[in-house]
């Protein structure tokens, strides 16, 4: 083989190697993007607070918060969850400012600003109660992957089946973990410590 040919062959090999590296880099970046999208729970939202005024999630920026979706006509799981979050916040001993507790109604037809305001005042500790138009609520539900569905009850009332997890968001606004109702206190406290730092 002539030197010219050898040089050509070597350059082809270099070209292939470069192409290989480029492909690898592009693939890695696409996997990372997909992973980031898959865990993009949360994000900015706009709802209505208990005074009927617009509430933007910008108000929560820079501070960690625990957000729970329920409804005020929920007799058992919702009061239990909020009471528990309040109690755990007390147990952490870092003050009521350590993280915000946010309650978003999945029943905006019955839960207006007054209803969520009165309900969140029940727990003797700051709880942010949010409502909104059905469309605004649907949007936030979608962002958090929350399911809810009205179910008729015998007393001509209705209950709402709903995702019962509490979502924990860090001070950078990014989703960190969920707390399920059946999880014990020590697991819940460990997760809360992750967002309050």
């Amino acid at each position, binding site marked *: 083989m002539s030197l010219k040919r050898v040089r050509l062959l070597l350059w082809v090999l270099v070209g292939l190697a470069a192409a290989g590296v480029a492909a690898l880099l592009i693939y890695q970046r696409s996997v990372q993007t997909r992973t980031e999208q898959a865990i993009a729970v949360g994000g900015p939202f706009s709802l209505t607070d208990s005074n009927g005024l617009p509430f933007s999630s910008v108000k929560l920026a820079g501070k960690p918060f625990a957000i729970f979706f329920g409804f*005020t*006509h929920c007799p058992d799981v919702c009061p239990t969850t909020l009471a528990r979050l*309040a109690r755990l916040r007390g147990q952490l001993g870092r003050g009521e400012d350590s993280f915000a507790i946010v309650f978003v109604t999945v029943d905006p037809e019955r839960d207006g600003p007054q209803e969520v305001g*009165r*309900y969140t005042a029940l727990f003797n500790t700051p709880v942010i109660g949010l409502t909104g138009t059905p469309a605004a609520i649907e949007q936030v539900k979608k962002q958090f992957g929350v399911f809810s569905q009205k179910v008729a*009850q015998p007393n001509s009332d209705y*209950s709402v*089946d709903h995702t*019962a997890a509490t979502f924990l968001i860090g001070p950078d606004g990014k989703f960190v973990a969920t707390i399920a*109702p059946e999880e014990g206190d020590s697991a819940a406290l460990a997760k809360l410590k992750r967002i309050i730092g």
Partner: protein
Amino acid sequence: MKLVLAFAALLLAACGARGTADIVVEKGWARATVAGQDSAAAYLTIVNRGGGDDRLLAVSVPRASMAMLHTSSMEDGIMRMRDMSDGLAVPGGATVALAPNGTHIMLSGLAAPLRQGEQIPATLRFAKAGTKDVMIKVEEASAQ
């Protein structure tokens, strides 16, 4: 002497209760509510000291226009509340507790909010043991 007789009577009564239901209802409690909240959950403990199985069929609470047995159950992360139209089994010798995130009595049609410290009378009707009364104590909303 009276004490011995009383003790003997108790022993005899206990013997006779084998195979029957001997129900005690205790530790009734509910969380306080606010104006506008139409419903609340009440919890209690049922102890079946007898050997026979029994079933809680119905609950009546004059303080509310309706009292129903409900169960909260989690499926795939979704909490669902359902009416227990068949009642609640209370096997012989068992202690069945109605507790948060589980079986509870749903009170609806509250004319006025439940206030902390209030005592609410309730009557439970069992298939075998008949009716049993219990007092439901209203605790603060953040009670566990």
